[in-house]
């Protein structure tokens, strides 16, 4: 990266002397592929995850094109493969690793004042395992695709499907270990390598969210690994664990699958919440409102998320008693999320709010996540879930949480820390425009699907009755706007690598150890280990004893 000096941009001082940072220390390919530096591994993840995002997005665009016509454009088998691959790639290869592996890898050591993660070599191994898993899944895509949906429900996936179920299952099985290793690294680093003076309640809330996510990584991911392992064996050897014809029980597969997959949706949203706490405080220059409540609600979500998976199976003939247990617990898991949203809103009170692009993403996140969370109540209550289960209402609900929540937070975090990662500023005008386009496109895509769901249009339909066409065309129009909205950041981020103005160590004037390092930071992050004396986001400089 040649650092061209841009004189005419006022206010950005020239780099005083040519410091060696983690990007310029070595340009050889070997230094990138065998790096131990958590920042470089974060960039490796960033590239592979962006690639997988656009592959998954491509399938989404094809699905929306197909749904413009009630009779569909592609053959039903192809549509089934499209939605299955869209689901598998987006869930396991983009949403689960997106914030933890990119922003988390880059920021966890820097935010707690460490030189690197506890196990750098395991961190690199985690990326290689992710690439092996992605290779298996790409092989499954190229060699005919898998048509079982991202849920791999038996007995369809074990005996009746004739598609590439085994490579896809192996791909997801392998990638699971990549997220386990990331989670292991974060837990050990956060516990054992905090800077002196950095007690648990002085940690930035992003770290709390990463810690809660890592707990779910460690305790949830192995169960889906063993489940897909059993599914693969059953498909190969025709022995009846999940296959009812040979005495097995498909309900048990659903239990073991959802035991991981519901906490997995919290793996996707918790890091987003962590980024949110950073953005809201940085752009309103105020301490978070109710720090302990927000911190502990992250842990509460991580624990309660393991108790609620039964709400995915209310209509599978579950007994009334099991239904009641899972329903009441599903309502309980909504409370910590509500607390977080109220606390973020309260943080804005009496702040000095500025509207750079990250803040637009943050404010968009709060609105859309509230909408997504509250529609979850429809699905936790037994009576309405009977009507809404398996319809487009569910599709709209989880897209509001994942695309409206997790992807918005991911883009917001990427914009917020881009100057620190690359040492360059992106064009803020274009960034705000892209944020608005994404917000509008998103709502136009997924709000009609709530109505479709209430009307009763089932999920995963390649062709549908005529009266649903209007809403589907609206949704497809919104999807095209959303697609354009996602291309714009890709363009100006790449542009900013070369031509973006040089960013100072703290372009936003934000608090946090990562902003005390030069940007891009040197390989060992800090010349000497920083000593922390105040609590997080202390913009007003009040001493800790001043308030609770």
């Amino acid at each position, binding site marked *: 990266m040649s650092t061209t000096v841009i004189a005419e941009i006022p206010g950005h001082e020239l780099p005083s002397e040519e410091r060696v940072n983690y990007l310029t220390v070595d340009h050889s390919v070997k230094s990138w592929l065998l790096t131990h530096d958590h920042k470089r591994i974060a960039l490796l993840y960033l590239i592979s995850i962006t690639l997988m995002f656009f592959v998954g997005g491509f399938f989404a665009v094809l699905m929306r094109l197909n749904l413009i016509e009630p009779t569909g454009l592609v053959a039903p088998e192809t549509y089934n493969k499209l939605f299955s691959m869209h689901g598998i790639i987006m869930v396991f290869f983009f949403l689960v690793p997106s914030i933890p592996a990119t922003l988390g890898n880059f920021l966890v050591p820097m935010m707690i004042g460490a030189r690197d993660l506890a196990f750098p070599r395991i961190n690199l191994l985690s990326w290689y395992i992710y690439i092996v898993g992605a290779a298996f899944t790409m092989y499954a895509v190229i060699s005919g695709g898998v048509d079982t949906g991202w849920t791999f429900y038996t007995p369809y996936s074990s005996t009746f499907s004739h598609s590439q179920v085994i490579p896809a299952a192996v791909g997801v099985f392998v990638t699971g270990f990549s997220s386990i290793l990331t989670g292991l690294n974060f837990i050990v680093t956060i516990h054992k390598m905090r800077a002196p003076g950095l007690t648990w309640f002085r940690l930035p809330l992003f770290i709390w969210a990463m810690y809660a996510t890592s707990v779910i990584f460690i305790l949830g991911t192995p169960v889906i690994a063993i489940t897909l392992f059993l599914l693969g064996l059953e498909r190969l050897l025709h022995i009846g664990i999940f296959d009812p014809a040979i005495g097995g029980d498909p309900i048990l597969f659903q239990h073991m699958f959802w035991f991981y997959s519901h906490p997995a949706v919290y793996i996707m949203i918790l890091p987003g919440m962590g980024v949110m706490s950073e953005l809201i405080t940085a752009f309103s220059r105020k301490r978070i409102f109710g720090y302990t409540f927000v911190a502990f609600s992250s842990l509460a979500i991580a624990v309660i998320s393991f108790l609620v998976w039964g709400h995915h199976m209310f209509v599978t003939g579950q007994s009334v008693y099991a239904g009641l247990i899972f329903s009441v617990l599903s309502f309980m898991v909504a409370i910590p999320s509500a607390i977080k949203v109220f606390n973020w809103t309260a943080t804005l009170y009496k702040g*000095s709010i500025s509207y750079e692009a990250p803040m637009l993403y943050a404010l968009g996140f709060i609105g859309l996540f*509230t909408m997504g969370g509250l529609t979850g109540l429809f699905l936790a209550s037994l*009576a309405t879930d009977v009507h809404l289960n398996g*319809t487009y209402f569910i599709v709209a609900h989880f897209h509001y949480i994942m695309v409206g929540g997790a992807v918005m937070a991911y883009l917001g975090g990427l914009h917020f820390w881009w100057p620190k990662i690359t040492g360059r500023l992106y064009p803020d005008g274009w960034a705000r425009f892209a944020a608005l386009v994404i917000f509008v496109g998103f709502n136009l895509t997924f709000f009609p699907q709530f109505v479709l769901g209430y009307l009763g249009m089932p999920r995963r339909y390649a062709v549908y009755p005529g009266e649903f066409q209007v809403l589907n065309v609206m949704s497809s129009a919104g999807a095209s706007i959303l697609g354009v909205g996602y291309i714009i950041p890709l363009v100006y981020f790449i542009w900013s690598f070369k031509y973006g103005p040089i960013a100072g160590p703290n372009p936003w004037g934000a608090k946090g150890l990562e902003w005390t390092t030069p940007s891009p930071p040197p390989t060992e992050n800090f010349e000497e280990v920083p000593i922390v004396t105040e609590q997080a986001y202390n913009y007003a400089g009040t001493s800790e004893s001043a308030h609770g």
Partner: protein
Amino acid sequence: MAGLLRIFSLYMTGLIQFGLENIASAAAWIPLHPPTASSIAQNVDLLYYFLTALTLFFTALIFGIIFFFMVKFRRRSPDEIPADTKTHLSLELTWTIIPTLITFVIFVWASVLYVRNSRPPESSMEMFVVGKQWMWHIQHPEGVREINEMHVPVGVPVKLTMTSEDVIHDFYIPAFRVKKDVMPGRYSSIWFQPTETGTFHLFCAQYCGTDHSEMIGWVYVMSPTDYAAWLAGGTKNESMAQMGGRLFSQLGCAACHTSDSSGRGPSLAGIYGTTQKMRDGNSKTVDEALIRQAIVNPNSITLPNYPPIMPTFQGQVNEEQVLQLIAYVKSLEPEERTTSSK
């Protein structure tokens, strides 16, 4: 960049123009509400409206507060540092307790509705549904068999006994607000009481393979007289019980299961609904699932004084024939049985 902007603005103006032209008629052909055609639909809709109102209220509240704060507390000068605000524990507790109470209210309301809806009335008409990869077989007790269509009289509660021959399907009628997964090798049941005549959609709501989206059909709710006429006009074959009887003798079941229990198997007259003691002591009620198990996997039922010599009929009878045999067994009257020797 400017070119891109121009293309994009053209695209947007076209879209807005299209919207404006059709805004008047839009409300007409954008369907917003499914028909409410069953006894429980009204109650489910009430809960749905309450939840929608709750969602819109809180979303509007949050958006409103945010916009208000964004305008009121916007940053006046680049280096403005706002004063720190105290954390109010009382405020935190209020917005923890209030959502908990609201969710508890919703939970109780929804659960009461669910428990009440899960129990079919005693007098409901019985019908049998078999889901097969990408079609629905529906059998009326009177013997009429339909594919992807179901004729029901209005006002009469109908209880469906459903099973699948291959993968998991899901019997879903949006207008009646009923849905239940249909599991292979097991029976599940739903009930509904249509309150409006008309034709309503029938969907498969659990992904079941290539033509999952073709596995749809229609439910025709007719007035009782039309229904009787349709039934009479239907194909003149015997009722399910009669078909079951024919199968019962065809497959040689009658040889062992004689009505006076002199044969090697137990007499089946009036056995449906009774509880039988098994060899290992615990007793099982004889219901559809047990009869099906007896047909498909006979020696897994160990009756005390009958040797497990009954051959399995798995593969010889498909799910519809099993349902017919069950209907036949249920139709046998108790008084034909001599006192059982159990």
